[in-house]
């Protein structure tokens, strides 16, 4: 049952990832709410889950020359410091607190998703 629910959670976020909405914003709450996974573990699963998914789509994007390396590398190089800081902070926080913090973050993103303007239609 747990395995089935895990696959289903992945399936759902996989579908949503393709739509440009971050899959993790669905996967992490699904894991903690339906499978009672610890918040840290759920976040770790999302990080791991990102590797194969990103690798596949990146392969296609690079082939189509859609990736702007000149911009990506400086942002990545400097941003890594942020990634170190964020990870360390996450790991020292208690799971219950991190879960609430994530909830607030999720709320903001849901809000943004609902109220942001539809750019595609605007440009056309």
């Amino acid at each position, binding site marked *: 049952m747990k395995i089935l629910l895990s*696959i289903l959670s992945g399936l759902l976020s996989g579908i949503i990832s*393709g739509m440009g*909405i*971050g899959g993790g914003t669905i996967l992490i709450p699904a894991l903690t709410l339906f499978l009672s996974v610890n918040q840290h573990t759920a976040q770790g699963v999302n990080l791991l889950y990102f590797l194969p998914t990103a690798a596949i789509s990146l392969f296609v994007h690079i082939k189509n020359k859609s990736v702007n*390396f000149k*911009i990506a590398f400086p942002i990545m190089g400097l941003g890594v410091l942020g990634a170190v800081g964020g*990870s360390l902070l996450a790991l020292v926080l208690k799971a219950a607190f991190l879960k609430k913090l994530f909830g607030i973050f999720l709320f903001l993103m849901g809000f943004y998703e609902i109220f942001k303007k539809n*750019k595609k239609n605007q440009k056309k």
Partner: protein
Amino acid sequence: MKLKNMLSRALRRPYVIYAAGGLLAGFLNGLFGSGGGTVIVPFLEECLDQEEHTSHATAILIILGFTIVSLFFYGFSGTLDIKLALWVSLGGVLGGFIGAKLLKKLTGPAIRKIFGAFMLVAAFRMVFFS
């Protein structure tokens, strides 16, 4: 041609902008194990004048870098559940295919709003009922 102009204009901007966007996205991605793309995509579009498609593609590379770094820390602290991640990824790959096929039919403000509402409900549960 237009893209080239936009690119050179973007590159002339100070590295402070790159640093700010990267640091924030990296920080959130490490803290929440997700969400870096939510910051970096609008950042690339609005601050660096990248086209939507380029922004999405470039964001994946950037977040991949952040994710690998974060995984080292998560891994060392022993919070990784590889088995669970494998099952989830299996569903994820299938979902990715389905999503790609459905994308043309499904995209649209309505669907986004439905997922947005779903996120709000989940957010409330996480903050108040857990």
